[in-house]
Each structure stands twice: as structure tokens, then as C-alpha cells.
């Protein structure tokens, strides 16, 4: 005001108005949680999913119980608890919901309202990732524990504690729980990259479920590609049968954990970087 400024100086950092509290990341997480919770489809979808996955394990156990005169081996009980029917459904739903948490907002245009309210776009994506991760870890734990308990009741005389002490059981339970948040975050990254609802759901479903069967395990390159995907890694981690040998290349347990560990941060990084770079 007191000195004339012939050349425009670089814009200073935005001075916060006197009444503005510090921007807190927790507020964004709370906002994203309100968005998730306030959709009527959310409780319905989760409720149906829990019933379906645990139901699938229960029916599989009832069906297989007669094949074993005594108590079925631990590996069989784990296979029945974490049945592909139930858990491929979990993978499909968690991946799609994660994808829609971003792509849906682009589809409706709400993302523009969100971005005007919160110009820090990367933080919005991180907040979405936190909500999806927590929501799906909880849902994954619920369905995995429920399936595990149900199968032990049916096939193991309800000795749940004993079953948990069996080799490989904690690993399988953890892998079954965590597959849901891993898929949700993978979907979130794909959603942020593609932004178009239908395309996002097709690509997410393909990457999670349709692609693995196309990648045979009898050639190195194709097996490597397959083993970098989430569903085959889940399959390996819940499988506690001893390796029967044969011509097929099997994923390793550490390699499968590595897939669980690497996909989420890679997907979230893609989401944060793309929304920062692109126009909304």
C-alpha cells in the first residue's frame, strides 16, 4: 500500500482469515466418512455381503463335513472357510466400492463441489483412502472371522481357539481379512486414473478377478505376472496344503505378502498424483 509495485510480485502464501482454524486432515477423513455413511446403499451392501460370505463358508462346510469321518484336516477347514465363492465376491465388492468412491464423484460432478470446498486435492484422496482402508479392514475382519468360526463349529467341534493355533491359520485369517482393503485401495487408484464410472468398474473387475485365470502358471513370464496380482496372492496365503510338486510355478508366501504390501501405496500414490496434475 505504501510503496508502488511496478512488477507483480509472486503471490504470497494464502494468509488465513482471523477466524480460520488450522486445516486438519482429520476433518477430511470425517467428511469422507459422512459421505460414505450417508449413502443408503452402504449399510445394505455391507450387510448383504457379510451374510453372503459367511453363508457361503457355512454351506461349503456342511457340504464337505460328510467326506471326513473324524475331524477334517486344518488345511481343508481353512479352504472351506475362505471359499472362493465368498471371497471372490468380497474382492469384487470391495474393489468396486473403492473404485466408485472416486469415479462416482467424478461421474456425478460432485468432485468439483468437493474441490472448491477443499482445494488440497491430494489430501482429499488420502482421506478417501483412509476411510476405504478402515471400512474394508473392519468388513474383512468381520466376514473372515465369521467364516472361520462358522467352519470350526461345523467341522471341528467348535474348537475355535485350537484351530487358531494350527500352523498357517493366523496367516490365512490375516490374508482373508486384508484382501478387502487391498482391493478397495487398488480400485481407488484405478478410479482416480480413469474417472469414468463404467470403465473404472470394468477395469477394476478385470484386474482383480478376470485377468488371473488368463495367466497360466506353466511359463515364467505369465506366472510372474499372475503372481503380482491380488487374487492369486490371496489364494496362496489362505492355502496351507503342502506343495504337491508338479509342473506349475506356485507363488511364494513372502512374494504374496509383498503384493499385499505394495499394491495399496502404489494405488494411493497414483490417485494423489493424478488428481494433483489434472484439471477437475
Amino acid at each position, binding site marked *: 500500500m505504501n510503496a508502488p509495485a511496478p512488477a*507483480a510480485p509472486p*503471490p*504470497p*502464501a*494464502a*494468509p488465513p*482469515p482471523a*477466524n*480460520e*482454524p488450522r*486445516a*486438519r486432515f482429520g*476433518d*477430511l477423513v*470425517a*467428511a*469422507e466418512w*459422512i*459421505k460414505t455413511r*450417508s*449413502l*443408503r*446403499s452402504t449399510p445394505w451392501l455391507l450387510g448383504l455381503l457379510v451374510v453372503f460370505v459367511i453363508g457361503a463358508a457355512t454351506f461349503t462346510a456342511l457340504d464337505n463335513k460328510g467326506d471326513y469321518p473324524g475331524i477334517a484336516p486344518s488345511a481343508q477347514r481353512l479352504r472351506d472357510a475362505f471359499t472362493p465363492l465368498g471371497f471372490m465376491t468380497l474382492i469384487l465388492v470391495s474393489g468396486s466400492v473403492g473404485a466408485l468412491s472416486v469415479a*462416482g*464423484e467424478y461421474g*456425478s*460432478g*460432485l*468432485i*468439483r*463441489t*468437493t*474441490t*472448491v*470446498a*477443499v*482445494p*488440497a486435492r491430494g*489430501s*482429499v484422496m488420502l*482421506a478417501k483412502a483412509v476411510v476405504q482402508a478402515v471400512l474394508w479392514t473392519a468388513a474383512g475382519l468381520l466376514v473372515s472371522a465369521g467364516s472361520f468360526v462358522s467352519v470350526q463349529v461345523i467341522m471341528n467341534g467348535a474348537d475355535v481357539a485350537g484351530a487358531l493355533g494350527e500352523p498357517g491359520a493366523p496367516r490365512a485369517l490375516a490374508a482373508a481379512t486384508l484382501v478387502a482393503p487391498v482391493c478397495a485401495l487398488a480400485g481407488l487408484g484405478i478410479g482416480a486414473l480413469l474417472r469414468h464410472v463404467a470403465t473404472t468398474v470394468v477395469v477394476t473387475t478385470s484386474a482383480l478377478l478376470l485377468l488371473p485365470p488368463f495367466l497360466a502358471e506353466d511359463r515364467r513370464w505369465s506366472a510372474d505376472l499372475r503372481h503380482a496380482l491380488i487374487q492369486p496372492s490371496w489364494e496362496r496365503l489362505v492355502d496351507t496344503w503342502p506343495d504337491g510338486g508338479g509342473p506349475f510355478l506356485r507363488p511364494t508366501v513372502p512374494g504374496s505378502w509383498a503384493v499385499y504390501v505394495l499394491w495399496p501405496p502404489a494405488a494411493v500414490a497414483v490417485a494423489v498424483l493424478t488428481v494433483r496434475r489434472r*484439471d*477437475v
Partner: protein
Amino acid sequence: MADVIEVDELTKKYGDKTAVDRLSFTVRPGQVTGFLGPNGAGKTTTLRLILGLERPTGGTARVGGVPFASHPRGLRHVGALLDAQQVHGGRSAAAHLWALARGNGLPRRRVGEVLDEVGLARAAGRRIGGFSLGMKQRLGIAAALLGDPPVLLFDEPVNGMDAEGVRWTRRLLRRLAAEGRTVFLSSHLMGELENTADRLVVIGQGRLLAAESVREFAARAGGRTVVVGTPQAAELTRVLVAEGAAVEPEGSAGAERLAVTGLAADRIGALALRHGLQVNELTTRAASLEAAFMDMTADSAEYRTPGGPGAAERPSPGGRPDPGRAPGRRDEAEPTRKGKDA
């Protein structure tokens, strides 16, 4: 001046199409500034650039001296309604607003306050998907008001509103400006801004055509139209056009009227008398702001039918297109009028 919107040499290109072309203007607090331009003129793109939703190809847009996107949270700085449809239909109005408020650390009572303010209190718990467009516009205005911001941007807020809604919006915008806020309001219809705006920023094809007060803008509308009621519209049209006037039919069957520009009322009366044509009405009508706007943007309207309303209502002789004409000037029309008035 913390609340000024400053647009400086702003440019946005999509491939080889220039949507906003070296646009510079300033929007000040305490006034309603109308942002006027035909469809496709670049109004929405400009608003999106101001809000940091898009990156400019060149130039800058600042709000309160800084790019808006430099604020980590926006609602306390700028409230904006870009497109009322940009909501999730599955949420209730209250949940939609609460999520926005919560992310900005605003208290929950603000949700009730803004819903009261826009008259949606009784619809708070209803799903947005069931709202009419007018209700969605009100919801969008409510969202813009959440953070009690000093700067407000509205992109065609009265689209889909009924007459009561339009009047309510106009009063609200006037009040917000009277409270000392910066109110920037886009429209493609002059009529919407005529009674609301204090100043106008007019653009066409991404370029600035005018930035001035409504009064100054109205002064451009110098051309006068004479309305002639006659049962012999075709014959009179032929006579008037032969004298160099531009004639547009108006009215309805059985009550045909002609809107004549380029000839004064006394001349028209004299011509009618000489040719023995009956005249029932002869009224001089001051050109409206709408006419000034049409005239100014006639050459820059992006979508236009040749000879259609956009081209024909322009008060230039014969209504023929003359693309080389500079916007806002009527140098071709001038000699005709002078000749006849003399």
C-alpha cells in the same frame, strides 16, 4: 482490498481452440458484478480457472491477492455454485452440506442455518435425487454460503427456478453485496442481470468486450426501435426496407406489429400515409440492455443460426450479417439514421 477477484491476461486453450483469450478484469467487493456472454463465450471456463479447477495456459487469476487453490480449505474464502446438478442424488441435503462443512472444520449448526436461509429447512432430510432443479440451485447456494465467505461466485444460479425463486435469488445477491461481499454472477441473459448487477463484465469468444457499470453499458444502447401496428404488415415492410430500415415482425396473428430500426416514428408515419397504409400504433421504444448486449456479442456468438434471432434482432440496416464489424460499434448503422433524422 482482500476480497478482490483479479483476472490478468488469463488464457486457456484446449488444443488449438482458445476458450479464454487474454482476459483481464477486476471484480470488487460491495457490488454485484454480472458476468455476461453468449453460450460458449468462456464464462464457465473463466470461473473454473478462478477456482483453480483448471490450470490456465497463460495469465493469472487471483482472489484476495492469491490463487484460490493455494488455500488448503476453501469455504471460508470463496463460496461457489457452478452446476447445481453436481451432487450425489443418494444423499440428503443435510448430509451433503454436513460433509462439506465438516471437511472445512465448520460447526454443524451452519448446515441448519444455510438450509433455513435458502428455504430448504423442511427438505433437509430428503434425498437430493428427488429435488427439482430449482431446489438443487437453492442447495448449491446453501453450500456456497456455508463458510460465510467474503467472495461468492455463481454460474447461472436462476436456471430452473420459478419466478419466486428468481426474485428471492435477486434479493439475496443484493443483500450479500450490501454486506460488503464480492458477488460475481454469470448469465447468458441480460434480463437476469439487468435488475441485479451494478457492474458488468461482458465477454465473447473468450475475449473481454466490456467491463463497466450497468449505467455505462445502457448508454451504449443508443439505437431506438419504433413499434408499428398495422394490418398491412407485408406492404409496409416493403416500403420501410426500401427506405433503408431494418424491420422485424412482432406480435401475433391478427395483431401484427413491426419493430423498425433505422427510421424515426414521424418518417414511418409519413411513409405509411404516402403509400396509403393503415397504421394502428406507432410507439418509440428505447433500446433495452438486452439489445445492447445482443449488438455487442452478435459477432462473437459461437452457436448461431444465420439470419436467426441472434443475427436479425441486431439493429443494423436490413439485418444482414457483417462479420467484419467491430464489436459494440454501429458505424454502419449511423449514416442511415443520420440521413433520415436530418
